[in-house]
């Protein structure tokens, strides 16, 4: 599992890092591209505006020219040449011309600079036009910017002047259009761009002087006009084109880059009349940036999910054989030698699996071979034992029979004597043979335990009781038997008879190990859900090699043992699901330790086993 996680992490990291790298790269490449595009857009707009300005100027000049060439203007000029004072009749002329020619400003001014008729300020007839010097000089030239004084304010306009040059006293036609919202909105602005006009009419910056072509209000709470103050002040100071980013809100997308272009008036010392502010919203750029980032995040996220999916699939593909191998190894470790790992393909893992399979197969073969060898060895041992066991009584038999044969030559009494003696011996040895054969037969016919709830201490006391007499039997040194029993042990599931026989065998063994007397100790205790019985003697003890082989059937360290006693004990203990161990030091005695499962579980199991076996 760790392997798969690591694999996933590596995959995801790789995807994320590569997506992030790509996004960063894209951003890095986009920014200058976008900025140059924005610059181009602004430059295009500026030039579009200048073109529009020029066109407007030409249009105004054309209209003013038309007015100057109109019959009414010529008639007026003629009449005023004849009688310069009689201007009353033309009072409304400028207004009607301004209306018909769609001009915001129109004035007829005589060659002394006196206004004959004014559309924008009708009441001003008869008053001198303050800017007449400049205006008359501009006659016939291109349109120019001028601040026009009105009744209660002044307004910025694009003006043209034409003279009606009839007679000695020309009449100047001064017409113009107001630079207002309509004027500003004349060129079609691309989306995201806007144009503002700051009328430079006050000494200090004033938000009221800012005109926005688009919005009704130039200054709302979200876009206070004061934000322009520094830019406008800078342009006012240096009188050159400048640009600045205006931040409206913490959101970068609201930012606008403003190019401020000073608009100068006509004349020798042109005044700064207004500042044209061309704003380019940074929203597209910021949004593009954001969308790149978002796509990067999305792609990264999706990549990671995909990576997880893919890598888990891939990892699964990669790790499944490994896991199978691991499981198989565990199975093998658990003893299931038949485990086969099925990994298709022909990659390294498959090869590993095949090797594993070969290994297990090999192990199995080896094991079978070992078993066969052991079986052969066991058979040999058995045969040797059998031969040995049978040879022992056979040899006296042979001697007795040979004695008989020889005794037949002797006297019948002697013979009789010998015969009787020999018959006894023969019978004894045959009985001995029978016993040997009975033992082998018993071992082979070892019954399956019939489990019941058994009190271990009862069995131990029973055995001690049974052998009490023998411990103190004549002809041998007395053996002290100690019972160290833990009370209140839970009953275990066991076959009381078999257990009794096994412990009796052990007690017998212990007695055999203490020909010179000693102490036999029977212990019982509970430990970790198990019931432990110990049978200790203080006999000669066993060497480690003896300890290793002691449970092998037909092995005996005794002169007259069949070697089956401990084998039967192990068989009984094993049949009870328990274990038997030996602990011994030569000269210091030997302790057999039997561990049996105790408690209800053991009982249930034993019941199941019993029923199963039944």
């Amino acid at each position, binding site marked *: 599992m760790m392997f798969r996680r690591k694999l996933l992490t590596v995959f995801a990291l790789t995807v994320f890092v590569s997506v992030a790298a790509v996004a960063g790269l894209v951003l890095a490449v986009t920014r200058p591209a976008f900025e140059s595009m924005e610059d181009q857009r602004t430059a295009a707009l500026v030039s579009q505006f200048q073109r529009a300005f020029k066109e407007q100027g030409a249009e105004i000049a054309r209209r003013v020219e038309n007015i100057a060439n109109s019959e009414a203007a010529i008639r007026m000029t003629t009449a005023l040449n004849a009688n310069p004072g009689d*201007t*009353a*009749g033309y*009072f409304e002329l400028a207004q009607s011309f301004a209306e018909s020619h769609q001009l915001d400003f129109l004035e007829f001014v005589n060659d002394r600079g006196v206004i004959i008729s004014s559309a924008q300020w009708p*009441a001003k*007839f*008869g008053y001198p036009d303050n800017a007449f010097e400049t205006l008359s000089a501009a006659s016939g030239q291109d349109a120019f910017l001028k601040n026009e004084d009105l009744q209660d304010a002044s307004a910025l306009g694009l003006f043209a002047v034409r003279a009606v040059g009839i007679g000695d006293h020309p009449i100047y036609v001064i017409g113009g259009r107001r630079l207002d919202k309509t004027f500003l909105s004349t060129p079609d602005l691309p989306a995201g761009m806007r144009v503002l006009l700051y009328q430079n009419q006050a000494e200090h910056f004033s938000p009221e002087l800012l005109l926005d072509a688009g919005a009704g209000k130039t200054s709302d709470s979200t876009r206070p006009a004061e934000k322009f103050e520094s830019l406008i002040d800078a342009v006012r100071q240096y009188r050159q084109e400048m640009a600045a980013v205006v931040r409206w809100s913490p959101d970068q997308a609201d930012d606008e880059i403003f190019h401020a272009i000073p608009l100068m008036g006509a004349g020798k010392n042109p005044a700064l009349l207004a500042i044209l502010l061309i704003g380019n919203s940074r929203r597209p750029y910021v949004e593009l940036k954001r969308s790149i980032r978002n796509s990067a995040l999305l792609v990264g996220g999706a990549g990671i999910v995909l990576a997880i999916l893919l890598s888990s699939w891939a990892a699964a593909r990669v790790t499944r054989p490994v896991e199978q191998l691991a499981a198989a190894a565990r199975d093998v470790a658990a003893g299931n030698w038949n485990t086969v790992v099925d990994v298709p393909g022909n990659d390294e893992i498959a090869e590993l699996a095949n090797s594993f399979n070969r290994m297990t197969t090999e192990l199995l073969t080896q094991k079978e071979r070992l078993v066969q060898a052991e079986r052969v060895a066991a058979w040999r041992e058995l045969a040797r034992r059998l031969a040995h066991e049978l040879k022992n009584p056979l040899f006296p038999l042979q001697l007795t029979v040979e004695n008989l044969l020889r005794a037949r030559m002797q006297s019948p009494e002697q013979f009789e004597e010998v015969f009787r003696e020999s018959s006894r011996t023969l019978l004894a040895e045959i009985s001995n043979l029978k016993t040997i054969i009975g033992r082998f037969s018993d071992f082979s016919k070892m019954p399956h335990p019939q489990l019941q709830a058994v009190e271990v201490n009862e069995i131990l006391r029973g055995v001690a009781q049974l052998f009490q007499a023998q411990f103190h039997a004549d002809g041998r040194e007395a053996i002290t038997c100690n019972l160290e029993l833990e009370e209140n042990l839970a009953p275990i599931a066991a076959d009381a008879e078999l257990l009794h026989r096994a412990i009796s065998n052990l007690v017998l063994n212990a007695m055999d190990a203490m020909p010179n007397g000693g102490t036999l100790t029977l212990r019982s205790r509970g430990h970790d859900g198990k019931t432990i019985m110990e049978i200790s003697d203080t006999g000669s003890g066993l060497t480690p090699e003896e300890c290793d082989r002691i449970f092998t059937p037909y092995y005996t360290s005794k002169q007259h043992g069949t070697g089956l006693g401990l084998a039967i004990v192990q068989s009984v203990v094993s049949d009870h699901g328990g274990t038997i161990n030996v602990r011994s030091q030569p000269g210091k005695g030997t302790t057999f330790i039997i561990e049996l499962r105790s408690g209800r579980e053991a009982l249930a199991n034993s019941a199941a086993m019993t029923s199963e076996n039944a």
Partner: protein
Amino acid sequence: MTRYVWRWLAVSSIWLMAAASAETRPHYGGVLRVMTHTVLASLDPHDDSGLDSFHQCSVMMLMYDTLVTTDASGRIQPSLASSWQSQNGNRRWQFRLRHGIKFDDDTPLTAEGAAASLRFGNSDWSVSADGDSVVIEVKDGDPELPAELALPRNAIAKRNGDGRPYGTGPFRAMEWNPGKKLTFAANDNYWAGRPFLDGVEIEMGKSFRDQLTALDLGQADLVEIAPEQLHRASLEKHHVVSSRLVELVALLFAREATSVEEKNLRAALSLSIDRGSIRSVLLQGEGQATASILPNWLSGYGFAFPADFDLARARAELEQARSAMHAIPSRTIQYDASDPLARVLAERVTLNAKDAGFSLQPTVSASADLRIVRIPLVSADPWIDLTYTALLMGSPLPRTSGSVEEMYAAEQTLLQTQQLIPLLQLPVSYGSSGNLNGLEIRLDGTVSLASAWLEGRKP
């Protein structure tokens, strides 16, 4: 052959001439279409909220009659009253009513009815009926009482409680779409004879320009012509009739001049205004520059108030004011936004005042220091006009009458308050279609359609 053609031509040209001037007798029938700039607020003559407009007075006099009327010479003539006499030093006036006059609702005009009508708006009179006479008693002798009774606001109207006043005039209101249209039909039983016209349709709230256009297009027979358009209208060969100078355009200060420096200031303002230019340019030579309240034709002494344009004197006056006031505060001058002349006038006065060094600020807001007012002549009686103007100025004259010299003194007193600076006297002008005849403009500038008739329309 040639001879025959010539003869035929001669005959036909004579015939054409005859056709052009054949209709010398009035023609009955036709509906006169009138357009006006002002909007009538009420059809009640006693509702004096708008009776200072010529148009409204004209309309009232279509529907209602007064006891007496003023003729073209300014003399009082009988109308609903056939005769009258005064007693007790002009304190008791008795007007004998004509017989057989009926209101629009077919009820006869009685002395009680007339007296009841006259009691409206004349709380200081004691009006009673005495047989077939109406008796009016005033506390102080009032020789101008008949002239007062000739005012449209003293027209005799009858109220039936249905909220609608009934009159005895030559026309009856048939349909009234307030603010838009008013339709009259001839009163067949008019005591002075049924009018020639079958009806009159008045469309209100039309701009002067629209009116002229409508006249050109034949959509109207009678329109108002603003004084400033009079010149053009006559150049364009419209049929134009003008009254005498019946309207005073003046600057009216909100408050009386109390201090000497304020008087200096106002004198400076008056002297700085170039009325001549205003008249010749703004009004294209129409009307008259004036410094008097009453037009000369009415007072006989109007020229004695010189309308001087003297910048040097204006500056001197202003200098005096400045020495007392340290700084001359700027004043606001209000004009009626719906009156194009007033606007230009305000701007011109502002420019003129600036030349003298006095700062004015034109505005349309009502709370201004001074405003441009148009004061119409309400009566052919100069005393009544003077009283009316004094009332407008808020410095009422005692109701009086007397010699011309006393009138001069009264007018001079009014002008010396320097609350009013007269600028121009204007006529009221009407343009009519070529087939309208018999149009009469009364001395007070109102139009009488009682004897008007339309040519060439089928009755």
